[in-house]
Structures are given as C-alpha cells and as structure tokens.
C-alpha cells in the first residue's frame, strides 16, 4: 500500500487536500478512523468567512485585520494575509462544486454578521454549514474516485532516512496493523477537545495527529491556547452556534440582564469569543448564573426567523436540553471548542520534517494566534487544506519512493502485543474522566498559577496510571476498547504540553486568561509563539517569533 500523497484524516482539511493533490496529478489516498462524512468538521454550524462583499462593502484587508486583532496579535500576519486573500476564491469553488449555501434576496451568497468581524462576512448554510461542506467535499472525493482507507486508525507516523515515510494504522473492521506509505504525508486529524470533559468536540477529537507528530520529535506551537466557545449546551457541551448571536440573540443572566453590556459595550454579544466566554464565566462565578449556566435568548427573533435560519440549533436545544428556543431561552456555558495550537507549519503546510505536512485544526500556521474568530476555522481548513494538498503533490513529484521499514512495523506489533497482553488492572475510562474533569477545573476559561501547577502533577500521575491500563477486548474486529485506549494516551501527552506552556506564559492573551496574577497582555515578553517538543519522556518548552507584516499590536477592545 503505497501512494504519492497520503492524507490522514477526512474532515474538511483532509478532503480538500486530497482533492487538490489529486487534481495536481498525484496518486492520493486518505486514511481515516471514521467514514469521511462522519468527521467532526460536519458539526460546524455557523459559517465560513470570506470577504465577498455581498452583504456590505468588505475587503480581504479588513478580514485580515479583524483576524489579526482577534488573534490578540499572536497570529502570523503573512499567513493571515494569504488566508484572507485566497478565501473568496475558495468559497466560489465550493459553491461551484454544489455546496448548498443560503442565498441572499438577489440570488448571490448570503453573508451574516459574526463575532468580532467588521462586516457581515460569514457565508452559511442555515446553521449546518459544516455538514454542507463535508457532504460537498465527499461528493468531490467520490467523483474523483479517490481511495479512502475507511475506519483505519492511524497509530504511528514513520520517519526513516530523514523523511516521513507513511503511517502504521490499525484496521478497525478486520483487525491487524497495516503499513501505508506516502511520499508526502498530510496530517489533517483535527483537534483535541476531548482533553476536556465539557467540549463541543466529538468523541473522535483526541488530537491523534498532534500526538503522533510530537512523538516523532516535531514541534507543537501555541498549545496553551484552547478556545472556549461561549454557547455550549448545558449539560452536554453540545455546540449552539455563534450564528444565533449573529442573528441577534441575547445573552442574559438569571435576572434577565444583558450582561455583555458591562463587558463589551459596543459589540455586546458579538464580541470576540474569548471575551464572551470570560464574561459568562464571571457571571456564573459571581452567582448570577443558573445551574452553572447563563441563558441564550432567541425569543424576540420570532418563530419564522428561528425556523428558517436556525433550525439545527432549535433541534439541538429541543433534543438535548428539552427547551424550544421559540418560547424559552437556552441554558449555555463556555466549553472547550477549538485548539488554536497544533503542529507547527509554514504557509504551504510544510512541517519541520521532510515529506510531512499538516492542515486544519491539527496544524498551527498560525492564522488564529491566541484566539480564533468564529467562521475562520472552516475557511482555514479549505484554504490551507488546498495549499497543503498542492504543495504535497508537487513535492511528491521529486521525492524518493516511500516505504515503511519492516522494523517499524515490527516495533509497532511488539508495542501492540504488550498493550493487549496486560491483564488484571485499571481500565482506561477512569483516567479519561479524571483528565477531562481536572483539565476543566484547572486549565479552563480562567487560569491560576497554583491550579496549573497542580494540574501538571495530576497529569503526571494519570500518565503513570495510563502506562498500566488494561484493554479488555483482545479481539481484532472493531476493537474500540483498543483504539479508545490509544486515544487516551494521545490526550495525556497533549494535556501535559498545554499546561506546561500555560504556566510559562505569564500574561493574559486571547484564550489564555490569568486575571489573578497577570491580567494584561505583555507584548515585550510574550508576543511570541510557544514551541513544545517531546524530549526524554516529557514536554520541553521553547519560543519562536511572531511574523508581523503591517499591523503593530494595539489594545484590543470590542
């Protein structure tokens, strides 16, 4: 099993990369632990940002600046400029492929306002934008007859001779480890929200690609920046889109007060996500919440608008909270949503290792810096997925044939045998629950020095316990007991990186908020990316400069 370009992960970034690499003439295959349309990109709701100027005058420069400001000046401005400039073309491409986007009165693509955006810039399909994109990309994959290794669980990236050679994957339906090689390998495995107990992320979002790259010695960037989405449903953490606020919904506390007036007098509910999440958490912490939640009020929008523009959110609220937003406000709270950090790449998607690329949430280019704007992540998957696919295909042209060495497969077999050979000990679920709860408590919306230090110790202990966990299912067919155990290992590694980088960042920037000891941004010392590598069984922290092209940091208010 050998290909020119091997894409790991089949969400929006992975499929977009595969399509581009195919169109560039490469023999492409996709490896995914889920069927492509089951990927979590499909759960994105609100929309995708590009300066089309359909609703109001807009420009890529304005989009770029909003993104730079939103990133709290930690985003790399060269990457952001490329991103904003190429986004409109990518949207037209998706539309031409058949994406069922919502239309404006004149038949062009409609655009709605979104948080911290200076103009209505968010293209959408009601509130199921991610679903529509994942379908259209899969349709294009089918059209091109691109090979997909469905339900293959990527376990180890393989390096040999200074290049990435491919991946060793577990065949979930039939059992057994398989080596699949690629001259170019693109990581597109998504985020790691499952490090937290309350998250909008799917069970599958366990940071597989980041952890595999980390283990290969590659640097992860800005790992301390986990975005907390302001409106996740109580109690499950299911996402209620920012589109609700884009359509005009209010956030209210238990007294009915629109509390955002206090925190962001101009932008109100449409301030940047980090700002809104902190405001909510403050309301909740100071006793003005209900059951650890605040309320998202859509009632004044009226039934017609809710049904036509936000049907998915209504369905979610009715199914998972028993609330019909036409009549009652929805209980929401901040929940882990999007990892700004990831595998460090350049603007072409290249990582430090020859032959390895990354795109989408797994990567950190960095477009989002310390805080991502709503609607920018779907756009990043498409624009940088395309760029990575193109680069990977072109490089594969000149690359030597790839092969996973037999010794690598033998090592993996041995490790698997050891893992499955254990018996009579703790099973992984307790470790998983303790990790998720402690991360939420100690590394959530607000961060305190002593809690973070405590969390480092907790993770260390959990990692120790993890080394002896027992996989009960010893079989080959659909052994999710095994894959879930491996995923937990990924989460533990990443959590260690995140908290270490968090303690060291002695400032408040974007999603990293330390109101008790370092309440302000410190550009002199910390306008730099954190860079984490795995050295001798532990994360090792370093820093790298931020690229500034046009915009010097200013105070960030909304």
């Amino acid at each position, binding site marked *: 099993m050998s290909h020119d370009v091997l894409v790991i992960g089949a969400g929006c970034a992975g499929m977009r990369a595969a399509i581009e690499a195919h169109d560039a003439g490469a023999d492409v295959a996709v490896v995914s632990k*889920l*069927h492509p*349309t*089951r990927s*979590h990109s*499909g*759960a994105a709701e609100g929309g995708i940002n590009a300066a089309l100027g359909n609703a109001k005058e807009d420009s890529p420069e304005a989009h770029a600046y909003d993104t730079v400001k939103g990133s709290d000046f930690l985003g790399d401005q060269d990457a952001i400029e490329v991103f904003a400039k190429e986004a409109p073309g990518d*949207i*037209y491409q998706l539309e*031409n*492929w*058949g994406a*069922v*986007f*919502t*239309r404006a*009165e004149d*038949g*062009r*693509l409609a655009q709605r306002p979104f948080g911290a955006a200076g103009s209505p810039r968010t293209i959408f399909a*009601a509130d*199921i934008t*991610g*679903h529509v994109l994942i379908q259209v990309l899969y*349709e294009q994959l*089918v059209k091109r007859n691109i090979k997909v290794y469905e339900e293959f669980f990527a376990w180890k990236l393989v390096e040999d001779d200074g290049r990435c050679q491919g991946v060793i994957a577990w065949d979930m*339906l039939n059992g057994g480890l398989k080596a699949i090689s690629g001259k170019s390998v693109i990581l597109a495995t998504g985020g790691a929200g499952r490090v937290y107990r309350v998250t909008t992320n*799917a*069970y599958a979002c366990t940071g597989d690609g980041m952890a595999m790259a980390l283990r290969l010695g590659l640097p992860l960037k800005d790992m301390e920046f986990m975005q907390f989405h302001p409106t996740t449903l109580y*109690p*499950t953490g299911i*996402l209620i889109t920012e589109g609700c606020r884009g359509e005009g919904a*209010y956030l*209210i506390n238990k007294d*009915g*007060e*629109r509390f955002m*007036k206090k925190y962001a007098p101009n932008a109100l509910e449409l301030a940047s996500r980090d700002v809104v999440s902190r405001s909510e958490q403050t309301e909740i912490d100071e006793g003005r919440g209900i059951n650890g939640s605040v309320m998202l*009020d859509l*009632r*004044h929008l*009226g*039934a*017609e608008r809710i049904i036509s523009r936000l049907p998915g959110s209504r*369905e*979610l609220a009715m*199914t998972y909270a028993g609330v019909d937003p*036409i*009549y009652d*406000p929805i209980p929401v709270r901040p929940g882990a949503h999007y990892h700004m950090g990831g595998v460090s790449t350049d603007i072409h998607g290249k990582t430090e290792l020859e032959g390895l690329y990354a795109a989408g949430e797994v990567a950190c280019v960095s477009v989002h810096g310390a805080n991502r704007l709503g609607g920018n992540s779907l756009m990043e998957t498409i624009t940088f997925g395309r760029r990575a696919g193109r680069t990977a295909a072109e490089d594969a042209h000149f690359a030597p044939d790839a092969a996973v060495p037999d010794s690598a497969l033998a090592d993996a077999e041995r490790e698997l045998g050891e893992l499955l050979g254990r018996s009579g000990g703790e*099973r992984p679920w307790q470790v998983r629950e303790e990790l998720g709860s402690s991360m939420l408590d100690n590394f959530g919306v607000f961060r305190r020095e002593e809690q973070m230090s405590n969390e480092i110790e907790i993770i260390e202990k959990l990692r120790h316990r993890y080394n002896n966990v027992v996989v*009960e*299912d010893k*079989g*080959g*067919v*659909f*052994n*999710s*007991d095994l894959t879930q155990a491996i995923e937990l290992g990924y989460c533990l590694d990443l959590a260690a990186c995140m908290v270490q980088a968090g303690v060291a960042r002695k400032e408040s920037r974007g999603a990293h908020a330390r109101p008790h000891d370092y309440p302000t941004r410190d550009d002199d010392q910390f306008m730099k990316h954190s860079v984490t590598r795995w050295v001798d069984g532990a994360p090792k922290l370093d820093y790298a400069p931020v690229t500034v092209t046009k915009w010097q940091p200013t105070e960030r208010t909304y």
Partner: protein
Amino acid sequence: MKVALKIWRSNSQTGERALREYEVDAPEWATLLDVLDLVKDRHDGSLAYRKSCRMTICGSCGMRMDGKTVLACRTRMYDIAEAGHIPVISAMGNMPVVKDLVTDMDSFWEKFKSVKPYVQPGYIEPPGGREHIISREQMSAIHKESLCINCGACVSECNAMESDPAFLGPHALAKAMRFVGDPRDSKRIDRLEEVSGHNGIHQCTRCYYCNERCPKGVDPRDAIAKLSAEAIKESIDSDMGAKHAKWFVTSAKTTGWLRETELVPKTQGVLASIKQAKFALELARHGKVPPPFPAHVAKNVKESRRLHGIVARQGRNGFAGIVQGEQAMAKLEHGHTGHSDRDPYGPGSFPRPYLPGEKREGAKA
C-alpha cells in the same frame, strides 16, 4: 437513574450470537449512547458500536431499539427507564452485522455512489468566476434532501430492500433527488432516466418507514415521490409504476373518481390484462368491481378539472409542487405562520432581557 437494556451481541468472525442484559446507573439526561458508553466502560469493554459527534450530525450511531431504527445519541432514556421497560438493542437491518451493533455499510455506500452523487456541471459558467445566481426558492427546494447525514436509518427500515436487496433504496434515491433539484446540475434528465429504471423509484412500496425513522427529517419517501413526479413531467413514464400513477391523474381529471376497472389495462397493458380476465370476472361476480359503463362521474368534477388546470398552468406538476406543499405543511406542523399570539416574554416566561442601568418594568425594588 437505573437503566437496564438487552443487547444482541454478535461477532462475525467467531459466529457467536447472544442476547445479554446490562444495568447501569446513568444521569437523567442520558441518551442511549451515554448508556452504551457506561456499559462499555463499567461492564464490558468488548461491546462494539460506532459513535462520534453525539449530536445528530455525524450519523455514526444508527441501531435498532425494540426493532425500530434510532440514532443512539438522539434517544433519551429517561421515560423508558422510568416506565421500567427494558429495551432490546440490535444492529441496523438490511446490512450484514460485523460485530454487536456495528454493521458492514459497503453496499449502502455502493448504492450511494451509483447515483453519481456530485454536481455534474454543464457548459454554463457562473458570472465572473463567482457564485451561480440561484434564488432562495430554488435553493431551498433541495433543503430537505441536503440534510441527509448518511446514517442508514432509512435503509435499515426499508421493506422494499428487504424483499429485493438490489433496490437502490431510500438513501441513494434521496441523494439523487438532491441533484435533480439542483439548478447547477446539467444531468437532470439522465438522472431521472436512471432512477426510473430497474431497481429504481418504482420499486418503492410506499410503506413510509423511511420517513418515519429518518432522524433528520429528510423524508426519503417524499424525495422518491418528487423524482417520480419530475420523471413523469419529463415523459419518462414507460415503467408500470409511472403508468399506474398517471392513470390516477387522468381518471381524477376526467371523472373525478378513480376508475379501477381501467387501472389494470392502463398500467400493465391490454395483453397482461387479458391474462387476468378470469380473476377480474371472479371479482365482478363477488361484487368487487363496479360496472365500467357508464362511467361514474363525480358531481363536482369541474372542480377537479380546474385544480388540474391550475397545477399545469403554474408549472407545479413536477417536484416543485411537492416541495411547495411540504413547506406549507411544515409551517402548519410547527403551528407558526409568522404570527404567534403568545408573548414570548409574557407570564411564566424567563425574565425579559434588559440592559444594565435600564429601568425594569415591574421589577422588585
């Protein structure tokens, strides 16, 4: 709360199959998926089922509960547990079982691929290298079909596929409709011809189980009806199913009643009808067939003809008419015509929002 359930455990490699009962302690908001997670974590790590998003969008966790297909993540267990009922959980139907609740979906995807599930653009390029100009009305016509998450619930329930596994089935056909209704697609007629052929739309038995069990409101049976209406509009009507449907229309238009006696020859042709003459006479002898002559004409037949005329004049005789009806029905169903009598902030509501510093009506001092 205590939740008990029985799960059909099986393994295609070992051939084992057994019904096992489990009981777990679950939070009151738990869904079937949450309960399965508890069973897997606390009782038996070898239990196999697919899951991912847990929010009705990835389509992974289709399975049957007491014989009906559900998404596990969408099924709340509170009422079931309170009632003391112990549901039986099993894998989806019309697909081979791989292990426990995991099915082999290869044939499901093969059928999907066979309808060429992608826009096939024609020669017309959108203006200025930008988006196509498509009205809201046109785009929303395929709104329902584009909601599909490929979970397989409709296929699991399909009675026609159970008797004839070669039938394209509700999932693939709903997907076909999504492209037939897309103004960007240039292969509408080819698609209609393909779905009207063998194993296509006319194999559907109209049991409506797919509509009933679809967790996203795609209503695959209605998509099949739309394909059928559109095909007949384009005179792709050589199949018996199409002839049968057409006769209903003709009959209603001419006499206001369904003339059953003529239904068989109009659908199956004269030769086939002669073969069934004996059966027909037998029916007639028992008074089951009304005399064909003189035709029974309804009193208000003119009204029926006028309706037929309106549909034809307004161009609603293809799928568009069904879409329009659907949208009207959806509004009725939700009880919303844009005007609600209920004050959303009225008595019994959560407090009306107010801005800090603003005077609140009726606020306690």
